[in-house]
């Protein structure tokens, strides 16, 4: 392939001579077809303009339809008209020059000074010259008088009071000297302003404005053809009238009409004139309309390409599909096709497919296609041989690409294997929602079928879901269990979870385990940990602190880690694929952490992690439906102890705040480093508010966690403890108190004069009047608190709106600027034109997918392995 760099693009205007040279034939006849339906000689459908019927040869170039590029024709206008898109440029020139001598109306010595700025767009010479000359009444060169030029948009020019016609304007423009044109920003070797006046109009080839034949046999012409017919008609009438010596008034009227038709031929939305309408009243779609806008040539046809072999439908979840699979409705599968080579290994199967009507087309080695129908079936089976290609419908196991917009990600398009199913929606395992950012509230997704062996293999080897578990962006799992998936595994692996043989068999059935292990508790019960261990690969050894451990440490319940002997069963220990101790929670499975998943995906490979996910997903849902995940109001009823601690914390806090306010008003409040008195006061007040909340929060979590460990209840506390959803703060908001309402990282300040909301007294300072909310969602807030709370709520709402908008556009710009960068064989990062961006990819040459959270080596684990 030859790659060349584009140095420059030059836009220009065709001269009448160029148009005549380009033209294959002069169009004179307003009729398009004769009464027999053949194109008229010299008409708009003249065969010299290019062939549109297959088989015929072009009268101009002698080629067939496929090779004939189409040829332009032209119309000789009997009276010239102004090109409407250039009328502004014409006006500029008329303002600047003298009607008599054609020179720019500035003295020669001053013009010499201007010359040095030629070619410098920043100087805006033409604007300066026009501004200087517009109001002049006399030419400094020849002394001739000049009247003011006025443009009645879009195309009528007045010189003083009198109309001037295109013939006169053309004469005027012809007078302008080349040197003066250069000053006005023109290159006179390439473009003369008199070409802005149209004397010969270019007629596009037929291929640009094809006529359509309806079933009824009536021919319907393109809008452009209609417009050109109008132009020719008026042109002829004008010619006849001139030759017959008609009065000037009539000629001028017809001239204006010709101008109108030419104007609308270029742009039917020209300001100041009525758009030309079709007989039905629909405005015509002329040249500018074809290019402009969302449905124009650029945005619709050039940047918005569409593909075949694709399907789109709403997505719905199906946990019984593998993460690698996509459920395809029969209707879609029967419509989409895959091309397949007939070889000596598959000819039998393919013949069988033809017999069952699963092949739509066969393609012979010479490239001819034949449709398979019930009547041709037997014949085709006989004909079919090695070397043929067939187009068969989609079947189970075919590889397809699945995509959800916006495709911000490598993982927004992944390869799945097809599973044909009844129903009308595309189905996917909810575990792969995360990388696609999909949910099931009506999301639609696209499906593409790779056609070549190369494409299919590439999709299977590089894009398959199971190979995308580790993020290529940050080197940690992105395809993860979440919400109920994590809660389910957590409940399953709790110390207290055990099953009778019958109960366990239900779970083994879901997991498709046929050889049952021995019950591990008193020889008759199965522990949840044993069942979970069935998902783990043999030989897996891991040890780490779970998410529950983190919560326990933060709430100061657990003070010293006893590792394997953890009294709360929060220390995960896996020996040879057996979960010995600990619970499986968000730290084992969740995004960005996922220690367990990370290890399986890296050490045991894509297939193992797929099996783990398929099993874990199903069993988690099973567990959640057995045990139930629900909430009751009583769970959020604070205990007496919490109530008293809250009351005490509040009292002390308010007391403390009161003292601070007093000090602040007296001016004895100590300044914080680098802050003003007001700032110090605000910060101190915020701190007091947050301390109160923290005290209550600590007590609540302590109580709830201990309650759960002693007597498990499957509710929102499970979600917080396992890290699947919700946080300790969320719980405190329900049971304890809301705490300080914040607007822009500070206490709500602006609202009214000297007070934040109208319910307060002017100048009142204190914790409560600064937006501290001492109630919770269970008790409900008082009006003051309610207003403060909604101030924070509104800010959150606005922020999410603004940040999605801003970050979306920022991301788009970034992605567009980086899309052509690639890594070369020498590991340099280069642009499309091979300019070096980085001498070594990422400066260390390591692909982030192969790192652990960006680190190519984790020293600690490497050492542990050796010891």
């Amino acid at each position, binding site marked *: 392939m030859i790659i060349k760099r584009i140095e420059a693009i030059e836009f220009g205007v065709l001269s009448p001579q160029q148009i005549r040279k380009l033209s294959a034939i002069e169009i004179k006849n307003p009729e398009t077809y004769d009464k027999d339906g053949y194109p008229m000689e010299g008409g708009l459908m003249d065969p010299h303009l290019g062939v549109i019927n297959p088989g015929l040869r072009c009268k101009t170039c002698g080629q067939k339809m496929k090779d004939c590029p189409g040829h332009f024709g032209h119309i000789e206008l009997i009276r010239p008209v102004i090109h409407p898109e250039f009328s502004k440029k014409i006006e500029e020139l008329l303002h600047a020059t003298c009607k008599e001598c054609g020179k720019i109306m500035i003295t020669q010595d001053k013009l010499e000074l201007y010359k040095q700025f030629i070619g410098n767009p920043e100087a805006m010479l033409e604007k300066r010259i026009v501004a200087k000359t517009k109001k002049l009444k006399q030419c400094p060169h020849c002394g001739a008088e000049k009247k003011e030029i006025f443009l009645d948009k879009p195309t009528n020019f007045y010189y003083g009071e009198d109309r001037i016609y295109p013939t006169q304007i053309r004469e005027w423009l012809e007078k302008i000297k080349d040197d003066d044109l250069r000053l006005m920003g023109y290159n006179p070797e390439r473009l003369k302003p008199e070409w802005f006046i149209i004397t010969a109009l270019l007629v596009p080839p037929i291929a640009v404005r094809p006529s359509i034949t309806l079933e009824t046999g009536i021919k319907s012409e393109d809008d452009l053809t209609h417009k050109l017919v109008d132009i020719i008609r008026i042109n002829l009438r004008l010619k006849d009238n001139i030759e017959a010596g008609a009065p000037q008034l009539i000629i001028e009227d017809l001239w204006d009409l010709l101008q109108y038709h030419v104007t609308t031929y270029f742009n039917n939305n020209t300001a100041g004139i009525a758009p030309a309408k079709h007989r039905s009243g629909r405005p015509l779609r002329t040249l500018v309309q074809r290019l402009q806008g969302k449905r124009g040539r650029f945005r619709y046809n050039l940047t918005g390409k569409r593909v075949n072999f694709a399907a789109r439908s709403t997505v719905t979840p199906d946990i019984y599909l593998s993460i690698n699979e996509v459920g395809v409705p029969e209707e879609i599968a029967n419509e989409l096709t895959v091309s397949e080579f007939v070889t000596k290994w598959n000819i039998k199967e393919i013949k069988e497919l033809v017999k069952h009507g699963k092949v739509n087309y066969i393609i012979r080695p010479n490239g001819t296609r034949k449709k398979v129908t019930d009547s041709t079936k037997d014949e085709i089976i006989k004909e079919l041989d090695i070397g043929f290609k067939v187009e068969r419908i989609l079947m189970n196991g075919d590889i397809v690409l699945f995509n959800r917009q916006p495709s911000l990600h490598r993982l927004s398009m992944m390869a799945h294997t097809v599973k044909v199913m009844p129903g009308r929606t595309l189905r996917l395992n909810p575990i792969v929602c995360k990388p696609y950012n999909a949910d099931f509230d009506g999301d639609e997704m696209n499906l593409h079928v790779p056609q070549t062996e190369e494409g299919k293999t590439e999709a299977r080897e590089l894009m398959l879901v199971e190979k995308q578990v580790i993020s290529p962006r940050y080197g940690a799992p992105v395809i993860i269990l979440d919400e109920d998936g994590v809660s389910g595994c957590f409940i399953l692996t709790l110390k207290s979870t055990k099953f009778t043989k019958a109960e366990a068999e239900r779970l083994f059935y879901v997991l498709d385990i046929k050889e049952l292990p021995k019950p591990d508790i008193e020889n008759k019960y199965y522990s949840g940990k044993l069942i979970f261990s069935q998902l783990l690969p043999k030989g897996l050894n891991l040890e780490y602190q779970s998410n529950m451990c983190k919560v326990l440490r933060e709430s100061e319940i657990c003070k010293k880690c006893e590792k394997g002997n953890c009294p709360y069963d929060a220390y995960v220990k896996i020996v040879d694929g057996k979960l010995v101790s600990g619970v499986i929670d968000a730290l084992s499975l969740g995004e960005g952490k996922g220690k367990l998943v990370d290890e399986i995906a890296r050490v045991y490979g894509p297939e193992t992690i797929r099996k783990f996910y398929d099993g874990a997903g199903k069993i988690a849902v099973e567990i959640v439906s057995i045990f139930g995940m629900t909430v009751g109001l009583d769970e959020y009823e604070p205990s007496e102890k919490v109530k008293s601690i809250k009351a005490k914390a509040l009292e002390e806090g308010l007391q403390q705040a009161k003292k601070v306010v007093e000090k602040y008003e007296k001016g004895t409040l100590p300044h914080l480093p680098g802050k003003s008195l007001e700032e110090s006061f605000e910060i101190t007040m915020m701190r007091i508010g947050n301390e109160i909340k923290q005290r209550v929060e600590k007590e609540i979590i302590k109580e709830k966690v201990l309650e759960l460990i002693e007597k498990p209840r499957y509710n929102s506390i499970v979600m917080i403890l396992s890290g699947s959803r919700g946080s300790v703060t969320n719980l405190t908001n329900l049971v304890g108190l809301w705490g300080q309402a914040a607007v822009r990282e500070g206490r709500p300040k602006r609202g009214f004069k000297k007070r934040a909301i109208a319910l307060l007294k002017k100048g009142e300072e204190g914790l409560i009047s600064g937006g501290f909310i001492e109630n919770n969602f269970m008790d409900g807030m008082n009006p003051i608190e309610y207003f403060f709370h909604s101030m924070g709520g509104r800010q959150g709402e606005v922020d999410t709106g603004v940040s999605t908008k801003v970050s979306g556009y920022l991301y788009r710009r970034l992605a567009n600027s980086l899309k052509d960068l690639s890594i070369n064989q*020498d590991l*340099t990062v*280069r642009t499309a*034109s*091979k*300019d*070096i*961006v980085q*001498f*070594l990819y*990422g*400066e*260390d040459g*390591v692909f982030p997918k192969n790192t652990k959270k*960006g680190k*190519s080596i984790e020293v600690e684990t490497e050492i542990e392995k050796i010891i």
Partner: protein
Amino acid sequence: MALEKVSQHILVPKHEILSKEEADKLVKKYGISIDNMPKIKKDDPVVEEIGAKKGDILKITRKSPTAGEFVYYRIVE
């Protein structure tokens, strides 16, 4: 205290002019023409300070979050 030279600033990495032999070796190693090299303006404060001329290749040793230390090359234009 005002800095006398830009290179004294903590954010300005070490710039050195590459000798003719080293430059040839570099160009050969990456198989690049001068057009494909990352560029640096000849009126860049660092370039002026170390007295590099147009066409010189600068070796820039930077700190890198991934590789610790990383060597980058830019041609003066």
